[in-house]
């Protein structure tokens, strides 16, 4: 069957892991082992031979990585939860609506049915919607390896375009999203319709006290190799009255955050996108 028209994945050994421990063991015994979850990013990489594993470890049958749990101060979202499941999950919608909103913006419905949270984190592709949202929510990526499980704050998890802070023998097991009582969040992306990758995105949250913005969080996606915390905008928002014009003006402070020495493309356009998306996300979060 090989050798006819079309780009097929390379040959590799296939192991269906029963649990995380077995997956980690197989990775440790392999030279270039890779993890297969939903495969929505991995299959194109395999087909284009940008990834050439000797062993593919399929996590699909690992029950412990499925589902969403309420852990009191945080929600635990299993790495094998699909974007569709996250977008529809009642716990996520109630306690981390920003995550549900971003999950619903990922690619198209067919990809959302298979693509997983763990895959989106591990691939750390800047065009993905999840990284900026995970950073905005101060989430913690859970990672298991030969030495056991550890947590990595999302702000330190994405270390470069397509690079995450995971070792070659480690597996993403889930995402812990803390609760944000008193805060409301919103995600904006361009283009807003899921038919294409996000050219840029902005996740923003505000805490309102007595009709003022007491505090804000703004994280930009795909305006650099990793999510970018817009601290100048956050500072400019603090204490603002709840009206659209001053919030939009505060979003102009984004210029100080978008320092794109290695950004691809027109820098004025990047700054324009950052300003507009941060402003829209803040205004929607504050509902002004």
């Amino acid at each position, binding site marked *: *069957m090989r050798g006819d028209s*079309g*780009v*097929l*994945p*390379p*040959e*590799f*050994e*296939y192991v*269906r892991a029963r649990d995380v421990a077995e997956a980690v063991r197989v990775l440790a015994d392999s030279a270039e082992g890779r993890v*297969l979850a939903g*495969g*929505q990013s991995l*299959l*194109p990489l*395999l*087909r284009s031979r940008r990834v050439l594993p000797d062993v*593919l470890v*399929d996590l*699909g049958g690992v029950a412990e990585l499925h589902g969403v749990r309420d852990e009191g101060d945080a929600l635990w979202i299993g790495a094998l939860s699909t974007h*569709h499941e996250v977008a*529809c999950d009642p716990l996520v919608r109630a306690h981390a609506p920003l995550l549900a909103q971003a999950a619903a913006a990922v*690619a*198209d*419905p*067919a*990809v959302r*049915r*298979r693509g997983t949270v763990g895959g989106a984190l591990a691939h750390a592709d800047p065009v993905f919607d999840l990284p900026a949202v995970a950073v905005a929510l101060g989430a913690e990526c859970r990672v298991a390896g030969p030495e056991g499980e550890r947590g990595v704050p999302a702000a330190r998890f994405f270390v470069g375009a397509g690079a995450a802070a995971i070792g070659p023998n480690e597996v993403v097991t889930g995402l812990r999203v803390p609760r944000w009582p008193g805060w409301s969040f919103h995600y904006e992306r361009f283009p807003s*319709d*899921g*038919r294409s990758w996000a050219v840029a995105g902005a996740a923003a949250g505000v805490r309102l006290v007595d009709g003022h913005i007491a505090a804000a969080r703004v994280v930009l996606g795909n305006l650099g190799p990793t999510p970018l915390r817009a601290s100048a905008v956050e500072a400019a928002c603090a204490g603002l009255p709840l009206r659209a014009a001053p919030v939009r003006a505060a979003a102009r402070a984004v210029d100080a955050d978008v320092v794109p020495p290695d950004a691809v493309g027109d820098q004025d356009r990047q700054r324009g996108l950052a300003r507009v998306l941060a402003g829209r996300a803040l205004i929607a979060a504050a509902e002004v």
Partner: protein
Amino acid sequence: MPDIGVTVDGVRHDDEVEAWLPLARYLRERVGGGGVVPPECETAECGGCTVLVDGAAVKSCLMLAVQADGCAVTTVEGLADDLVARPLARALRRHAQRCARCLPGLVVAATDLLRNRPDPSEQEIHEGLAGVRCRCGDDADVVRAVRAAADSLGVWGTRQTGVREVG
């Protein structure tokens, strides 16, 4: 080589497959006649290979055959007598068909959409079918066709009798 057991359009298949074999190619070359899953675009862009896996529309080029082990796969042929798919195929042929390469994927994706949302807005249709590209026709025609199918299903009682899955 891994062994898999897959039910395709109601028929159980037990096969030994190469681990690297994409589901789309397995369906096309091992299981079905050529029309079941159209030739792949190889980039996951076209969505023509969309099938239902355990009831959810997914791109079969983005799945390995081994991942479908134990699953029920429904191709457009398995939907030939489907209450929702039949009027959809008819409406798509009438309003939107040009070269028909995207038709199998469109019928499958739109069936998933209407089963979960029997009365979708134009925006919901646009978003729901975002994974399947009609290249020579017009998006607006596709939306019109799905809307027409939804209307005919409404007339014939789908909405009234609640024949739908909650997803």
